[in-house]
Protein backbone atom coordinates (compact mmCIF):
# COMPACT_ATOMS: atom_id res chain seq x y z
CA UNK A 1 0.00 0.00 0.00
CA UNK A 2 2.82 2.32 0.76
CA UNK A 3 3.96 2.60 -2.79
CA UNK A 4 6.61 5.20 -2.39
CA UNK A 5 7.89 5.47 -5.87
CA UNK A 6 11.29 6.95 -5.16
CA UNK A 7 12.46 3.55 -4.01
CA UNK A 8 11.18 1.92 -7.14
CA UNK A 9 13.68 0.09 -9.18
CA UNK A 10 12.51 1.48 -12.42
CA UNK A 11 12.39 5.10 -11.57
CA UNK A 12 14.63 5.70 -14.57
CA UNK A 13 12.07 4.30 -16.90
CA UNK A 14 9.43 6.30 -15.10
CA UNK A 15 11.43 9.48 -15.38
CA UNK A 16 11.96 9.09 -19.09
CA UNK A 17 8.30 8.45 -19.66
CA UNK A 18 7.37 11.32 -17.42
CA UNK A 19 9.70 13.57 -19.31
CA UNK A 20 7.92 12.56 -22.48
CA UNK A 21 4.56 13.13 -20.94
CA UNK A 22 5.73 16.43 -19.59
CA UNK A 23 6.98 17.78 -22.87
CA UNK A 24 3.73 16.63 -24.37
CA UNK A 25 1.55 18.27 -21.79
CA UNK A 26 3.61 21.39 -21.34
CA UNK A 27 2.88 22.44 -17.77
CA UNK A 28 1.92 19.05 -16.46
CA UNK A 29 5.40 18.21 -15.31
CA UNK A 30 5.66 15.70 -12.52
CA UNK A 31 5.82 18.29 -9.83
CA UNK A 32 6.42 17.82 -6.19
CA UNK A 33 3.40 19.49 -4.74
CA UNK A 34 0.15 21.20 -5.54
CA UNK A 35 -0.39 23.01 -8.79
CA UNK A 36 -2.93 25.31 -10.29
CA UNK A 37 -3.40 22.74 -13.07
CA UNK A 38 -4.81 19.62 -11.40
CA UNK A 39 -2.96 17.22 -13.67
CA UNK A 40 -3.34 13.52 -13.02
CA UNK A 41 0.31 13.22 -14.07
CA UNK A 42 1.42 15.31 -11.10
CA UNK A 43 0.36 13.04 -8.26
CA UNK A 44 0.87 14.19 -4.70
CA UNK A 45 -0.83 11.40 -2.80
CA UNK A 46 -0.55 7.64 -2.51
CA UNK A 47 -3.57 6.54 -4.56
CA UNK A 48 -2.88 9.13 -7.24
CA UNK A 49 0.77 8.11 -7.39
CA UNK A 50 0.08 4.40 -7.74
CA UNK A 51 -2.51 5.16 -10.39
CA UNK A 52 0.09 7.27 -12.14
CA UNK A 53 2.54 4.36 -12.11
CA UNK A 54 -0.10 2.08 -13.51
CA UNK A 55 -0.99 4.60 -16.17
CA UNK A 56 2.61 4.72 -17.38
CA UNK A 57 2.61 0.97 -17.65
CA UNK A 58 -0.63 0.99 -19.61
CA UNK A 59 0.60 3.79 -21.83
CA UNK A 60 3.71 1.79 -22.54
CA UNK A 61 1.73 -1.30 -23.52
CA UNK A 62 -0.90 0.47 -25.59
CA UNK A 63 1.77 2.71 -27.06
CA UNK A 64 3.68 -0.38 -28.10
CA UNK A 65 0.60 -1.86 -29.73
CA UNK A 66 -0.05 1.40 -31.50
CA UNK A 67 3.47 1.68 -32.85
CA UNK A 68 3.46 -1.89 -34.13
CA UNK A 69 0.01 -1.88 -35.72
CA UNK A 70 0.19 1.64 -37.08
CA UNK A 71 3.65 0.87 -38.39
CA UNK A 72 2.43 -2.21 -40.24
CA UNK A 73 -0.50 -0.24 -41.62
CA UNK A 74 1.76 2.50 -42.86
CA UNK A 75 4.06 -0.03 -44.41
CA UNK A 76 1.16 -1.73 -46.18
CA UNK A 77 -0.15 1.57 -47.46
CA UNK A 78 3.17 2.64 -48.86
CA UNK A 79 4.36 -0.69 -50.11
CA UNK A 80 1.15 -2.00 -51.65
CA UNK A 81 -0.37 1.13 -53.12
CA UNK A 82 -1.59 1.01 -56.65
CA UNK A 83 1.17 1.63 -59.14
CA UNK A 84 1.28 2.44 -62.80
CA UNK A 85 0.57 -0.61 -64.88
CA UNK A 86 -1.51 -2.27 -62.20
CA UNK A 87 -4.79 -1.54 -63.95
CA UNK A 88 -4.68 -4.67 -66.02
CA UNK A 89 -4.17 -7.28 -63.33
CA UNK A 90 -5.35 -8.42 -59.95
CA UNK A 91 -2.94 -9.29 -57.14
CA UNK A 92 -2.72 -12.81 -55.82
CA UNK A 93 -5.92 -13.69 -54.00
CA UNK A 94 -5.36 -14.71 -50.41
CA UNK A 95 -8.25 -15.98 -48.34
CA UNK A 96 -6.80 -16.44 -44.91
CA UNK A 97 -4.45 -18.39 -42.74
CA UNK A 98 -5.53 -20.19 -39.64
CA UNK A 99 -2.06 -20.17 -38.17
CA UNK A 100 -1.44 -16.48 -38.45
CA UNK A 101 -4.91 -15.63 -37.26
CA UNK A 102 -4.41 -17.87 -34.29
CA UNK A 103 -1.15 -16.15 -33.47
CA UNK A 104 -2.66 -12.70 -33.52
CA UNK A 105 -5.49 -13.85 -31.37
CA UNK A 106 -3.28 -15.37 -28.73
CA UNK A 107 -0.88 -12.46 -28.39
CA UNK A 108 -3.64 -9.97 -27.49
CA UNK A 109 -5.07 -12.51 -25.05
CA UNK A 110 -1.74 -12.68 -23.28
CA UNK A 111 -1.52 -8.90 -23.21
CA UNK A 112 -4.99 -8.76 -21.74
CA UNK A 113 -4.03 -11.26 -19.05
CA UNK A 114 -1.11 -9.11 -17.99
CA UNK A 115 -3.12 -5.90 -18.13
CA UNK A 116 -5.90 -7.44 -16.12
CA UNK A 117 -3.66 -8.83 -13.39
CA UNK A 118 -2.02 -5.46 -13.00
CA UNK A 119 -5.33 -3.67 -12.93
CA UNK A 120 -6.91 -6.09 -10.50
CA UNK A 121 -4.00 -5.78 -8.13
CA UNK A 122 -4.31 -2.03 -7.93
CA UNK A 123 -8.07 -2.13 -7.61
CA UNK A 124 -7.70 -4.32 -4.56
CA UNK A 125 -4.75 -2.37 -3.22
CA UNK A 126 -6.61 0.92 -3.29
CA UNK A 127 -10.18 -0.13 -2.61
CA UNK A 128 -9.51 -2.70 0.06
CA UNK A 129 -6.60 -0.90 1.68
CA UNK A 130 -6.51 -1.73 5.38
CA UNK A 131 -7.37 1.21 7.54
CA UNK A 132 -4.38 2.48 9.51
CA UNK A 133 -4.92 3.26 13.17
CA UNK A 134 -4.55 6.98 12.88
CA UNK A 135 -6.86 8.38 10.27
CA UNK A 136 -8.88 11.50 9.82
CA UNK A 137 -12.55 10.83 9.11
CA UNK A 138 -14.55 13.25 7.07
CA UNK A 139 -18.11 13.02 5.90
CA UNK A 140 -18.73 14.73 2.60
CA UNK A 141 -22.24 15.66 1.55
CA UNK A 142 -22.78 16.87 -1.98
CA UNK A 143 -25.40 19.54 -2.53
CA UNK A 144 -26.49 21.06 -5.75
CA UNK A 145 -23.46 23.19 -6.40
CA UNK A 146 -21.64 23.14 -3.08
CA UNK A 147 -19.88 20.76 -0.69
CA UNK A 148 -20.58 20.16 2.95
CA UNK A 149 -17.85 18.68 5.15
CA UNK A 150 -18.32 17.14 8.59
CA UNK A 151 -15.48 16.06 10.81
CA UNK A 152 -17.53 13.81 13.11
CA UNK A 153 -14.78 13.16 15.62
CA UNK A 154 -13.76 16.81 15.80
CA UNK A 155 -17.26 18.29 15.78
CA UNK A 156 -16.55 20.57 12.84
CA UNK A 157 -18.88 21.50 9.99
CA UNK A 158 -17.62 23.52 7.08
CA UNK A 159 -18.10 23.92 3.36
CA UNK A 160 -16.30 23.83 0.04
CA UNK A 161 -12.79 24.01 1.44
CA UNK A 162 -11.49 20.84 3.02
CA UNK A 163 -8.56 21.00 5.41
CA UNK A 164 -6.46 17.90 5.97
CA UNK A 165 -3.12 17.36 7.65
CA UNK A 166 -0.24 16.62 5.34
CA UNK A 167 1.11 13.08 5.30
CA UNK A 168 4.80 12.37 5.67
CA UNK A 169 6.79 9.20 5.89
CA UNK A 170 7.33 9.78 9.59
CA UNK A 171 3.72 10.67 10.21
CA UNK A 172 1.55 8.92 7.66
CA UNK A 173 -1.86 10.47 7.66
CA UNK A 174 -4.65 9.00 5.57
CA UNK A 175 -7.98 10.72 5.23
CA UNK A 176 -11.04 8.51 4.93
CA UNK A 177 -14.07 10.07 3.33
CA UNK A 178 -17.68 8.95 3.60
CA UNK A 179 -19.60 10.29 0.68
CA UNK A 180 -23.32 11.11 0.59
CA UNK A 181 -25.53 13.31 -1.47
CA UNK A 182 -28.41 15.49 -0.37
CA UNK A 183 -30.00 15.73 -3.78
CA UNK A 184 -28.54 14.44 -7.07
CA UNK A 185 -25.34 12.62 -8.09
CA UNK A 186 -22.03 14.40 -7.68
CA UNK A 187 -18.46 13.22 -7.79
CA UNK A 188 -15.53 14.08 -5.53
CA UNK A 189 -12.39 14.62 -7.56
CA UNK A 190 -9.06 16.11 -6.61
CA UNK A 191 -6.84 14.71 -9.37
CA UNK A 192 -3.51 15.23 -7.67
CA UNK A 193 -4.58 13.30 -4.59
CA UNK A 194 -6.81 10.41 -5.67
CA UNK A 195 -9.25 9.17 -8.24
CA UNK A 196 -12.84 10.28 -8.06
CA UNK A 197 -15.75 8.69 -6.26
CA UNK A 198 -19.39 9.52 -6.79
CA UNK A 199 -21.76 10.89 -4.21
CA UNK A 200 -25.10 9.24 -4.76
CA UNK A 201 -28.28 9.90 -2.83
CA UNK A 202 -29.60 7.05 -0.73
CA UNK A 203 -26.22 5.36 -0.94
CA UNK A 204 -22.98 5.46 1.01
CA UNK A 205 -19.59 5.53 -0.65
CA UNK A 206 -16.12 5.62 0.81
CA UNK A 207 -12.71 6.66 -0.45
CA UNK A 208 -9.38 7.60 0.99
CA UNK A 209 -6.50 9.88 0.12
CA UNK A 210 -3.43 11.50 1.56
CA UNK A 211 -1.35 14.51 0.61
CA UNK A 212 2.41 14.26 0.53
CA UNK A 213 3.06 17.98 0.24
CA UNK A 214 1.44 20.92 1.97
CA UNK A 215 -0.55 23.41 -0.04
CA UNK A 216 -3.80 23.90 -1.94
CA UNK A 217 -5.09 21.16 -4.22
CA UNK A 218 -7.86 22.11 -6.58
CA UNK A 219 -10.53 19.87 -7.99
CA UNK A 220 -14.17 20.02 -8.83
CA UNK A 221 -17.39 18.08 -9.03
CA UNK A 222 -17.06 15.52 -11.79
CA UNK A 223 -20.61 14.33 -12.28
CA UNK A 224 -23.10 16.52 -14.08
CA UNK A 225 -25.47 17.73 -11.38
CA UNK A 226 -27.43 20.56 -12.95
CA UNK A 227 -27.09 24.14 -14.06
CA UNK A 228 -24.03 25.07 -12.04
CA UNK A 229 -22.14 21.80 -12.19
CA UNK A 230 -19.29 23.80 -13.72
CA UNK A 231 -18.95 25.96 -10.62
CA UNK A 232 -19.05 23.30 -7.98
CA UNK A 233 -15.36 23.69 -7.31
CA UNK A 234 -13.47 21.92 -4.62
CA UNK A 235 -10.41 22.99 -2.67
CA UNK A 236 -8.34 20.78 -0.42
CA UNK A 237 -5.78 22.38 1.84
CA UNK A 238 -3.04 20.11 3.09
CA UNK A 239 -1.82 21.78 6.27
CA UNK A 240 1.25 21.10 8.31
CA UNK A 241 0.33 19.43 11.58
CA UNK A 242 0.63 22.73 13.47
CA UNK A 243 -1.46 24.66 10.99
CA UNK A 244 -4.05 21.93 11.02
CA UNK A 245 -4.27 21.92 14.80
CA UNK A 246 -4.75 25.67 14.79
CA UNK A 247 -7.40 25.43 12.14
CA UNK A 248 -9.28 22.75 14.07
CA UNK A 249 -9.15 24.80 17.22
CA UNK A 250 -10.63 27.82 15.48
CA UNK A 251 -13.34 25.84 13.74
CA UNK A 252 -14.51 24.29 16.96
CA UNK A 253 -15.35 27.69 18.46
CA UNK A 254 -18.79 29.20 18.19
CA UNK A 255 -19.13 32.27 16.01
CA UNK A 256 -17.43 35.48 17.01
CA UNK A 257 -19.87 37.95 18.54
CA UNK A 258 -18.85 41.44 17.64
CA UNK A 259 -21.20 44.11 19.04
CA UNK A 260 -20.15 46.53 16.31
CA UNK A 261 -22.07 44.59 13.69
CA UNK A 262 -25.20 44.01 15.75
CA UNK A 263 -27.32 45.49 12.95
CA UNK A 264 -26.07 42.97 10.46
CA UNK A 265 -26.59 40.08 12.84
CA UNK A 266 -30.15 41.13 13.47
CA UNK A 267 -30.79 41.50 9.79
CA UNK A 268 -29.45 38.03 9.24
CA UNK A 269 -31.94 36.65 11.72
CA UNK A 270 -34.80 38.77 10.45
CA UNK A 271 -34.35 37.97 6.83
CA UNK A 272 -34.79 34.35 5.98
CA UNK A 273 -31.03 33.82 5.85
CA UNK A 274 -31.25 31.85 9.05
CA UNK A 275 -33.66 29.36 7.52
CA UNK A 276 -30.96 28.12 5.29
CA UNK A 277 -27.68 28.85 7.05
CA UNK A 278 -26.19 27.85 10.35
CA UNK A 279 -24.08 30.21 12.43
CA UNK A 280 -23.05 28.40 15.56
CA UNK A 281 -24.00 30.26 18.70
CA UNK A 282 -26.85 32.17 17.07
CA UNK A 283 -30.46 31.18 16.36
CA UNK A 284 -29.47 30.54 12.74
CA UNK A 285 -29.56 26.75 12.33
CA UNK A 286 -30.66 26.23 8.73
CA UNK A 287 -29.16 23.34 6.84
CA UNK A 288 -30.06 24.10 3.27
CA UNK A 289 -27.00 26.28 2.60
CA UNK A 290 -23.38 26.20 3.78
CA UNK A 291 -22.47 26.68 7.43
CA UNK A 292 -21.30 30.27 7.79
CA UNK A 293 -19.88 30.09 11.32
CA UNK A 294 -16.31 30.57 10.13
CA UNK A 295 -17.01 32.00 6.74
CA UNK A 296 -13.96 34.24 6.85
CA UNK A 297 -11.64 31.27 7.25
CA UNK A 298 -12.42 30.39 3.63
CA UNK A 299 -10.70 31.91 0.62
CA UNK A 300 -13.63 31.66 -1.74
CA UNK A 301 -17.39 31.78 -1.53
CA UNK A 302 -20.11 29.88 -3.35
CA UNK A 303 -17.95 26.84 -3.98
CA UNK A 304 -15.15 28.76 -5.60
CA UNK A 305 -17.36 30.87 -7.85
CA UNK A 306 -15.99 34.09 -6.35
CA UNK A 307 -13.14 35.18 -4.10
CA UNK A 308 -14.02 35.88 -0.50
CA UNK A 309 -13.83 39.66 -0.67
CA UNK A 310 -16.36 42.16 0.68
CA UNK A 311 -17.15 43.34 -2.85
CA UNK A 312 -17.82 39.86 -4.15
CA UNK A 313 -19.83 39.05 -1.03
CA UNK A 314 -22.03 42.08 -1.60
CA UNK A 315 -22.62 41.15 -5.16
CA UNK A 316 -23.41 37.57 -4.08
CA UNK A 317 -25.98 38.60 -1.51
CA UNK A 318 -27.52 41.24 -3.77
CA UNK A 319 -28.03 38.77 -6.58
CA UNK A 320 -26.53 35.26 -6.36
CA UNK A 321 -27.56 34.64 -9.95
CA UNK A 322 -25.19 37.26 -11.23
CA UNK A 323 -22.24 35.48 -9.64
CA UNK A 324 -23.38 31.92 -10.20
CA UNK A 325 -26.44 31.74 -12.42
CA UNK A 326 -28.75 29.00 -11.24
CA UNK A 327 -27.35 28.79 -7.71
CA UNK A 328 -30.01 27.77 -5.24
CA UNK A 329 -29.75 30.80 -3.01
CA UNK A 330 -32.45 33.34 -3.80
CA UNK A 331 -31.90 37.06 -4.21
CA UNK A 332 -33.47 38.64 -1.11
CA UNK A 333 -34.15 42.06 -2.68
CA UNK A 334 -32.28 43.95 0.00
CA UNK A 335 -31.31 47.59 -0.10
CA UNK A 336 -27.67 48.53 -0.51
CA UNK A 337 -27.60 49.63 3.10
CA UNK A 338 -28.90 46.31 4.35
CA UNK A 339 -26.39 44.48 2.24
CA UNK A 340 -23.56 46.58 3.65
CA UNK A 341 -24.71 45.75 7.18
CA UNK A 342 -24.99 42.07 6.41
CA UNK A 343 -21.60 41.90 4.81
CA UNK A 344 -20.05 43.83 7.65
CA UNK A 345 -21.43 41.18 9.95
CA UNK A 346 -20.30 38.28 7.81
CA UNK A 347 -16.84 39.82 7.62
CA UNK A 348 -16.47 39.27 11.36
CA UNK A 349 -17.06 35.52 11.20
CA UNK A 350 -13.47 34.36 11.42
Amino acid at each position, binding site marked *: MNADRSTSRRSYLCRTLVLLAATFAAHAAFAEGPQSTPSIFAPAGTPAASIFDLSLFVIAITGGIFVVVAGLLTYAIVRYRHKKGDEKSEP*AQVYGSTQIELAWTVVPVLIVVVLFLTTARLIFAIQDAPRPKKTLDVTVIGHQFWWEFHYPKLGIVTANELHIPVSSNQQPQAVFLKLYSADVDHSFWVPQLAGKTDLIPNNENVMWMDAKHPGLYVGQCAQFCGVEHAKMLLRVYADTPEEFAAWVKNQQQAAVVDPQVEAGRELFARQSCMNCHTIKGTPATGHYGPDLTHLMSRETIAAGAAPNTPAAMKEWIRDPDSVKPGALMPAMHLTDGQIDQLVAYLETLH
Partner: protein
Amino acid sequence: MSEQENHGHHSDSIHLPAPTTWPVVLAFGLALIFLGIVTNPAISILGGVLTVFGTVGWFRDVLPHERHVDVEVEVMDLNIRSTRERVARMELDKPGRYAPTETYPIVSGIKGGIAGGFAMIIPAMIYGLIAQHSIWYPINLMGGAGIANWTDTSTANIAAFHWQGLIAASVIHAITCLLVGLLYGAMLPMLPRHPIVLGGILAPVLWTGLLHAVMNIVNPVFDQRIQWGWFLISQVTFGLVAGWVVAHQSRISANRNLPLAVRMGIESPGLMQHDHDEKSEDRH
Protein backbone atom coordinates in the same frame (compact mmCIF):
# COMPACT_ATOMS: atom_id res chain seq x y z
CA MET B 1 -23.23 -11.49 -71.03
CA SER B 2 -23.21 -13.54 -74.08
CA GLU B 3 -22.99 -16.86 -72.31
CA GLN B 4 -26.21 -16.08 -70.52
CA GLU B 5 -28.91 -17.59 -72.61
CA ASN B 6 -32.52 -16.82 -72.58
CA HIS B 7 -34.69 -19.72 -71.63
CA GLY B 8 -37.97 -17.99 -71.93
CA HIS B 9 -40.12 -18.56 -68.94
CA HIS B 10 -40.79 -15.07 -67.74
CA SER B 11 -43.55 -12.56 -67.44
CA ASP B 12 -43.22 -8.94 -68.41
CA SER B 13 -43.95 -7.55 -65.01
CA ILE B 14 -42.96 -8.09 -61.45
CA HIS B 15 -45.15 -7.98 -58.35
CA LEU B 16 -44.06 -5.50 -55.74
CA PRO B 17 -45.87 -4.45 -52.57
CA ALA B 18 -48.05 -1.46 -53.28
CA PRO B 19 -47.23 1.95 -51.80
CA THR B 20 -49.46 2.71 -48.86
CA THR B 21 -50.27 5.61 -46.57
CA TRP B 22 -51.21 3.60 -43.52
CA PRO B 23 -47.77 3.10 -41.97
CA VAL B 24 -47.20 6.86 -41.97
CA VAL B 25 -50.61 7.48 -40.53
CA LEU B 26 -50.08 4.91 -37.82
CA ALA B 27 -46.65 6.27 -36.96
CA PHE B 28 -47.99 9.80 -36.87
CA GLY B 29 -50.85 8.72 -34.63
CA LEU B 30 -48.57 6.95 -32.18
CA ALA B 31 -46.18 9.89 -32.11
CA LEU B 32 -49.05 12.27 -31.42
CA ILE B 33 -50.29 10.11 -28.57
CA PHE B 34 -46.91 10.52 -26.94
CA LEU B 35 -46.59 14.18 -27.83
CA GLY B 36 -49.93 14.74 -26.17
CA ILE B 37 -48.54 13.49 -22.90
CA VAL B 38 -46.06 16.32 -22.93
CA THR B 39 -48.29 18.99 -24.39
CA ASN B 40 -52.03 18.64 -24.44
CA PRO B 41 -54.38 15.67 -24.04
CA ALA B 42 -56.33 16.81 -27.10
CA ILE B 43 -53.32 15.90 -29.20
CA SER B 44 -53.26 12.44 -27.69
CA ILE B 45 -56.90 11.98 -28.58
CA LEU B 46 -56.23 13.00 -32.16
CA GLY B 47 -53.30 10.61 -32.15
CA GLY B 48 -55.52 7.82 -30.86
CA VAL B 49 -57.99 8.33 -33.68
CA LEU B 50 -55.22 8.28 -36.27
CA THR B 51 -53.79 5.16 -34.68
CA VAL B 52 -57.08 3.33 -35.03
CA PHE B 53 -57.41 4.43 -38.64
CA GLY B 54 -53.85 3.45 -39.36
CA THR B 55 -54.20 0.01 -37.83
CA VAL B 56 -57.43 -0.80 -39.60
CA GLY B 57 -56.15 0.51 -42.88
CA TRP B 58 -52.97 -1.48 -42.56
CA PHE B 59 -54.90 -4.66 -41.80
CA ARG B 60 -57.01 -4.17 -44.84
CA ASP B 61 -53.85 -3.73 -46.88
CA VAL B 62 -52.57 -7.17 -46.05
CA LEU B 63 -55.69 -9.17 -45.28
CA PRO B 64 -56.92 -11.29 -46.76
CA HIS B 65 -54.40 -10.65 -49.54
CA GLU B 66 -51.42 -8.39 -49.79
CA ARG B 67 -51.96 -5.46 -52.11
CA HIS B 68 -49.37 -5.19 -54.79
CA VAL B 69 -48.51 -3.34 -57.95
CA ASP B 70 -47.15 -4.70 -61.17
CA VAL B 71 -44.00 -3.06 -62.34
CA GLU B 72 -43.16 -3.32 -65.98
CA VAL B 73 -39.83 -4.81 -66.77
CA GLU B 74 -37.70 -3.60 -69.57
CA VAL B 75 -34.38 -5.09 -70.15
CA MET B 76 -31.05 -4.10 -71.52
CA ASP B 77 -27.71 -5.78 -71.60
CA LEU B 78 -25.42 -5.31 -68.69
CA ASN B 79 -21.82 -6.01 -68.95
CA ILE B 80 -20.14 -7.60 -66.00
CA ARG B 81 -16.54 -7.70 -66.92
CA SER B 82 -13.35 -6.49 -65.38
CA THR B 83 -10.56 -4.62 -67.08
CA ARG B 84 -8.21 -6.53 -64.86
CA GLU B 85 -8.03 -9.72 -66.73
CA ARG B 86 -4.92 -11.28 -65.33
CA VAL B 87 -4.86 -12.67 -61.79
CA ALA B 88 -1.48 -12.99 -60.18
CA ARG B 89 -0.57 -16.05 -58.17
CA MET B 90 1.45 -16.09 -55.03
CA GLU B 91 5.03 -16.47 -56.09
CA LEU B 92 6.85 -19.40 -54.62
CA ASP B 93 10.52 -20.08 -54.85
CA LYS B 94 9.70 -23.61 -55.87
CA PRO B 95 6.87 -24.46 -58.17
CA GLY B 96 4.67 -27.42 -57.63
CA ARG B 97 1.94 -28.56 -55.33
CA TYR B 98 2.49 -29.21 -51.70
CA ALA B 99 1.09 -31.61 -49.29
CA PRO B 100 -1.09 -30.15 -46.55
CA THR B 101 1.15 -28.37 -44.13
CA GLU B 102 -0.71 -28.34 -40.90
CA THR B 103 -0.94 -31.45 -38.87
CA TYR B 104 -3.26 -30.21 -36.20
CA PRO B 105 -1.13 -27.32 -34.97
CA ILE B 106 -3.78 -26.27 -32.48
CA VAL B 107 -3.89 -29.55 -30.71
CA SER B 108 -0.15 -30.00 -30.73
CA GLY B 109 0.26 -26.51 -29.28
CA ILE B 110 -2.18 -27.21 -26.51
CA LYS B 111 -0.45 -30.47 -25.76
CA GLY B 112 2.89 -28.70 -25.67
CA GLY B 113 1.48 -26.07 -23.34
CA ILE B 114 0.12 -28.70 -20.98
CA ALA B 115 3.37 -30.67 -20.98
CA GLY B 116 5.44 -27.55 -20.46
CA GLY B 117 3.10 -26.36 -17.75
CA PHE B 118 3.56 -29.54 -15.79
CA ALA B 119 7.29 -29.67 -16.40
CA MET B 120 7.63 -26.15 -15.16
CA ILE B 121 6.15 -27.05 -11.82
CA ILE B 122 9.20 -29.13 -10.96
CA PRO B 123 11.83 -26.38 -10.86
CA ALA B 124 9.33 -24.12 -9.14
CA MET B 125 8.75 -26.65 -6.39
CA ILE B 126 12.45 -27.27 -6.02
CA TYR B 127 12.94 -23.57 -5.67
CA GLY B 128 10.23 -23.37 -3.04
CA LEU B 129 11.75 -26.20 -1.07
CA ILE B 130 15.28 -24.90 -1.29
CA ALA B 131 14.58 -21.25 -0.73
CA GLN B 132 11.73 -21.34 1.79
CA HIS B 133 11.20 -25.00 2.65
CA SER B 134 7.67 -24.78 1.41
CA ILE B 135 6.07 -25.78 -1.85
CA TRP B 136 3.32 -23.23 -1.24
CA TYR B 137 5.71 -20.33 -1.44
CA PRO B 138 5.95 -20.08 -5.24
CA ILE B 139 2.27 -20.88 -5.57
CA ASN B 140 1.27 -18.06 -3.30
CA LEU B 141 3.60 -15.66 -5.00
CA MET B 142 1.90 -16.33 -8.26
CA GLY B 143 -1.59 -16.45 -6.80
CA GLY B 144 -0.94 -13.10 -5.21
CA ALA B 145 -0.96 -11.61 -8.67
CA GLY B 146 -4.55 -12.67 -8.96
CA ILE B 147 -6.08 -12.02 -5.62
CA ALA B 148 -3.54 -9.38 -4.76
CA ASN B 149 -5.08 -8.24 -1.55
CA TRP B 150 -2.40 -9.65 0.67
CA THR B 151 -2.62 -7.72 3.82
CA ASP B 152 0.11 -9.72 5.46
CA THR B 153 3.06 -10.17 3.13
CA SER B 154 5.39 -11.74 5.64
CA THR B 155 7.48 -14.67 4.46
CA ALA B 156 5.79 -17.05 6.86
CA ASN B 157 2.39 -16.14 5.51
CA ILE B 158 3.47 -16.60 1.95
CA ALA B 159 4.97 -19.96 2.76
CA ALA B 160 1.73 -21.19 4.34
CA PHE B 161 -1.11 -22.87 2.50
CA HIS B 162 -3.93 -20.66 1.17
CA TRP B 163 -6.67 -22.13 -0.92
CA GLN B 164 -7.33 -18.79 -2.65
CA GLY B 165 -3.68 -18.62 -3.54
CA LEU B 166 -3.78 -22.14 -4.91
CA ILE B 167 -6.86 -21.52 -7.02
CA ALA B 168 -5.66 -18.18 -8.34
CA ALA B 169 -2.23 -19.59 -9.12
CA SER B 170 -3.68 -22.63 -10.87
CA VAL B 171 -5.97 -20.52 -13.00
CA ILE B 172 -3.26 -18.08 -13.97
CA HIS B 173 -0.79 -20.86 -14.62
CA ALA B 174 -3.18 -22.95 -16.67
CA ILE B 175 -4.35 -20.04 -18.80
CA THR B 176 -0.91 -18.74 -19.59
CA CYS B 177 0.51 -22.20 -20.29
CA LEU B 178 -2.30 -23.07 -22.66
CA LEU B 179 -2.08 -19.75 -24.43
CA VAL B 180 1.66 -19.83 -24.82
CA GLY B 181 1.44 -23.43 -25.99
CA LEU B 182 -1.16 -22.40 -28.54
CA LEU B 183 1.11 -19.63 -29.71
CA TYR B 184 3.98 -22.06 -30.10
CA GLY B 185 1.73 -24.42 -31.99
CA ALA B 186 0.85 -21.69 -34.45
CA MET B 187 4.26 -20.10 -34.77
CA LEU B 188 6.85 -22.85 -34.56
CA PRO B 189 5.86 -24.59 -37.79
CA MET B 190 6.38 -21.27 -39.52
CA LEU B 191 9.93 -20.94 -38.24
CA PRO B 192 11.07 -24.52 -38.31
CA ARG B 193 14.83 -24.15 -38.44
CA HIS B 194 15.71 -24.19 -34.79
CA PRO B 195 12.55 -24.87 -32.86
CA ILE B 196 14.31 -25.69 -29.66
CA VAL B 197 16.53 -22.65 -29.73
CA LEU B 198 13.64 -20.37 -30.59
CA GLY B 199 10.92 -21.80 -28.44
CA GLY B 200 13.04 -23.25 -25.71
CA ILE B 201 15.65 -20.63 -25.07
CA LEU B 202 15.20 -17.38 -26.91
CA ALA B 203 11.52 -16.87 -26.16
CA PRO B 204 11.78 -17.65 -22.42
CA VAL B 205 14.77 -15.37 -22.05
CA LEU B 206 13.00 -12.51 -23.78
CA TRP B 207 9.86 -13.18 -21.82
CA THR B 208 11.73 -13.21 -18.52
CA GLY B 209 13.47 -9.97 -19.41
CA LEU B 210 10.13 -8.37 -20.20
CA LEU B 211 8.59 -9.55 -16.96
CA HIS B 212 11.63 -8.38 -15.08
CA ALA B 213 11.06 -4.93 -16.49
CA VAL B 214 7.38 -4.69 -15.65
CA MET B 215 6.90 -6.90 -12.63
CA ASN B 216 7.22 -4.04 -10.19
CA ILE B 217 3.97 -2.66 -11.51
CA VAL B 218 2.19 -5.89 -12.26
CA ASN B 219 2.87 -7.34 -8.84
CA PRO B 220 5.29 -5.61 -6.47
CA VAL B 221 5.13 -8.31 -3.81
CA PHE B 222 6.15 -10.85 -6.34
CA ASP B 223 8.83 -8.52 -7.64
CA GLN B 224 10.41 -7.99 -4.25
CA ARG B 225 10.61 -11.64 -3.50
CA ILE B 226 11.23 -13.24 -6.79
CA GLN B 227 14.55 -14.87 -7.62
CA TRP B 228 15.04 -14.18 -11.26
CA GLY B 229 17.53 -17.01 -11.77
CA TRP B 230 15.04 -19.60 -10.67
CA PHE B 231 12.34 -17.88 -12.58
CA LEU B 232 14.38 -18.12 -15.74
CA ILE B 233 15.08 -21.79 -15.14
CA SER B 234 11.43 -22.66 -14.89
CA GLN B 235 10.62 -20.56 -17.96
CA VAL B 236 13.26 -22.33 -19.99
CA THR B 237 11.98 -25.67 -18.76
CA PHE B 238 8.58 -24.74 -20.05
CA GLY B 239 9.95 -23.53 -23.33
CA LEU B 240 12.07 -26.60 -23.96
CA VAL B 241 9.36 -29.07 -23.13
CA ALA B 242 6.61 -27.23 -24.93
CA GLY B 243 8.79 -26.54 -27.93
CA TRP B 244 9.88 -30.13 -28.12
CA VAL B 245 6.36 -31.48 -27.94
CA VAL B 246 5.07 -29.07 -30.54
CA ALA B 247 7.98 -29.59 -32.88
CA HIS B 248 7.61 -33.32 -32.78
CA GLN B 249 3.91 -33.38 -33.21
CA SER B 250 3.59 -31.04 -36.14
CA ARG B 251 6.30 -32.63 -38.20
CA ILE B 252 8.40 -29.57 -38.47
CA SER B 253 11.33 -31.36 -39.95
CA ALA B 254 9.23 -32.43 -42.91
CA ASN B 255 8.16 -28.84 -43.48
CA ARG B 256 11.56 -27.41 -43.44
CA ASN B 257 11.96 -27.12 -47.16
CA LEU B 258 8.60 -25.62 -47.88
CA PRO B 259 8.31 -21.97 -48.86
CA LEU B 260 7.38 -19.56 -46.07
CA ALA B 261 3.91 -18.84 -47.45
CA VAL B 262 3.06 -22.50 -47.31
CA ARG B 263 4.44 -22.89 -43.83
CA MET B 264 2.31 -19.97 -42.72
CA GLY B 265 -0.72 -21.85 -43.93
CA ILE B 266 -1.87 -19.09 -46.24
CA GLU B 267 -4.91 -20.01 -48.26
CA SER B 268 -4.40 -18.86 -51.78
CA PRO B 269 -4.93 -20.40 -55.21
CA GLY B 270 -1.96 -22.48 -56.11
CA LEU B 271 -0.94 -22.88 -52.52
CA MET B 272 -4.03 -24.79 -51.64
CA GLN B 273 -5.36 -28.02 -52.88
CA HIS B 274 -7.86 -27.63 -55.63
CA ASP B 275 -10.19 -30.55 -55.23
CA HIS B 276 -13.45 -28.81 -54.75
CA ASP B 277 -15.39 -31.98 -54.09
CA GLU B 278 -13.24 -33.05 -51.17
CA LYS B 279 -13.38 -29.74 -49.47
CA SER B 280 -15.82 -29.59 -46.66
CA GLU B 281 -17.85 -26.62 -45.45
CA ASP B 282 -16.60 -26.92 -41.92
CA ARG B 283 -13.43 -25.03 -42.61
CA HIS B 284 -15.52 -21.88 -42.91
